[in-house]
């Protein structure tokens, strides 16, 4: 009797507990490999940057960071990435809406093409965009005729940033739009809401977290982008030189100290963006109807 009870209580109590404990094999092996791999390839190399920073000292870091050339590069990179991410937030939402809600010939093809900036090597994107927006290019010619320089100007930098960060908002907003219950919209309509009211009061609140996440990801990608921009920007120090290019220039001069001081703020910024994106994604999960 006693034995029976203890077995019964063990299956009752222990089942839930033990299920999540180490029933499956391979915990130590996989976690150990994961940590080793991550440390060797990511954590140790990244901490080298911090070590270098220690060697430099605050004064040198500060004087390099506040040099006019560095500040100009940061201004261009940050402003350009903000404008590019904003452009992609607006157009990305529009494209996501059209792809999810409307049916038209070629929709699937366009949907597939949206991933192109992720798959196309950035150098190829760079030379293609330069060919389009150079003063002799298909679109560059149009702008040149009204006196606007596209390639080899800050505008060119923004155009390249728009291209490389285009898919984020679309790809994050699409599934959220798909999940919105049509009945809620119908209810809004029956209660007398106009289409615009339904959009701003019902749909927009549901997709805002997704759009913001896409915006943050697009911004993070654009700020660090190098490959496509170096071709189209013209790389003039103080005018069209972005931060990653300035780092590259310092490295080519074997000025590791200079490169480190310039890179540090960019690296800190990417940590902040990573944290922000994680928080935003948690917000999406909380808001998502399960």
């Amino acid at each position, binding site marked *: 009797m006693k034995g029976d009870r203890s077995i019964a209580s063990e299956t009752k109590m222990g089942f839930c507990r033990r*299920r999540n404990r180490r*029933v*499956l*094999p*391979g*915990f130590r092996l996989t*976690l150990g490999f*994961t940590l080793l*791999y*991550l440390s060797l390839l*990511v954590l*140790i*190399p*990244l901490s*080298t*940057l911090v070590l270098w920073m220690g060697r430099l000292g605050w004064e040198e870091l500060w004087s390099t960071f506040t040099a006019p050339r560095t500040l100009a590069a940061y201004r261009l990179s940050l402003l350009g990435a903000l404008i590019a991410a904003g452009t992609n937030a607006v157009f990305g939402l*529009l*494209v996501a809406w059209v792809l999810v809600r*409307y049916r038209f010939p070629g929709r*699937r093809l366009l*949907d*597939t*093409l*949206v*991933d*192109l*900036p*992720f*798959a196309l*090597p*950035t*150098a*190829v994107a760079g*030379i*293609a965009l330069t*060919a389009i927006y150079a003063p002799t290019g*298909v*679109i560059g010619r149009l702008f040149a005729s009204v006196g606007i320089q596209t390639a080899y100007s800050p505008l060119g930098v923004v155009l390249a940033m728009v*291209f490389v960060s*285009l898919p984020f908002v679309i790809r994050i907003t699409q599934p959220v739009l798909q999940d919105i219950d049509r009945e809620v*919209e*119908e209810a809004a*309509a*029956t209660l007398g809401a106009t289409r615009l009211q*339904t959009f701003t009061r019902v749909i927009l609140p549901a997709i805002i977290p997704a759009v913001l996440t896409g915006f943050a990801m697009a911004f993070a990608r654009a*700020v660090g*982008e*190098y*490959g496509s921009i170096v071709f189209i920007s013209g790389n003039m120090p103080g005018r069209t030189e972005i931060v*990653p*290019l300035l780092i*590259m220039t310092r*490295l080519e001069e*074997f000025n590791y100290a200079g490169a480190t001081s310039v890179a540090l703020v*960019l*690296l800190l910024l990417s940590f902040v*963006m*990573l944290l922000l*994106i994680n928080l935003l994604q948690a917000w999406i999960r909380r808001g998502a109807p*399960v």
Partner: protein
Amino acid sequence: MESGTGVMPAPMIDANVTSVAGQVPSAPVRWTLTAVAVGFLAVTLVLPLVVVFINALAQGWQTAIAAWKHPDALAAIRLTALTLAIVVPLNTTFGLAAAWAISKFRFAGKSLLVTLIDLPFSVSPVISGMVFVLLFGAQGLLGPWLSEHGIRIIFAVPGIVLATTFVTLPFVARELIPLMQAQGQEEEEAAVSLGAGGWQVFLRVTLPNIKWGLAYGTILCGARTLGEFGAVSVVSGHIRGETNTMPLHVEILYNEYQFAAAFSVASLLVAIALITIIGKSIVEWRMQGSLRDSAGIVRQQHPAPNGGLGDED
């Protein structure tokens, strides 16, 4: 007359449905939005593709093909293929191991680990390459020791492989982690209780369940490996025929004003990119299909995919 009255109710019901639903937008709005979206994608995505092919063929087929057959181009293709053959299996193994540990077990610091895996995505490619220069370069921390022993990492193939591995590290892991978390571990536990060994469980139970996610992650990882430019540019040193990958070769040709040749090699990369996104779409549709099959079960058993913060421990 009779047919007239017979037809009448139909449009009325139709009108009613539209006004109640209210969500079938008026044609002008729909067409304007569609036109703007299609126009935006045409200018930003389709036009660059067309421009690459037009410029590649600007001086005729012969020039285009000669650019592919140039010894430097062939060396670049070989190096890119070599990098691909090393980096993709490494990061796939890592992705599988990380996803297994994270999705099948509970341990402290799990969400920190997931965030750290994502880290390479938010770091600028130039910084990704730079950290290896600071570590292994001539003036780097280990530089003197390496040169004493005659080992070259920076401005050589190992540096290119390292930098590319860094940049593409998250792709497979971040596809597999949410997928395997959603699928839970009941099936694997059943297999273990029936006496299956670890590898058997992985190969017979887990792998069939995650094959499309795995394929998806591998495709993305491969595409980025092939096209990585910034990080590789920092560590490569641009030695012709030795440390130039395909994207770096495109850059060199372009900077030498050999535009037709540059665009010709670029068109190869465009072709690969197009194959990649088509393959990705096919895998995606398959994956959605197989997810839909198991969606009911998954939802019931795991109401919150990320739930279980504190638990019993």
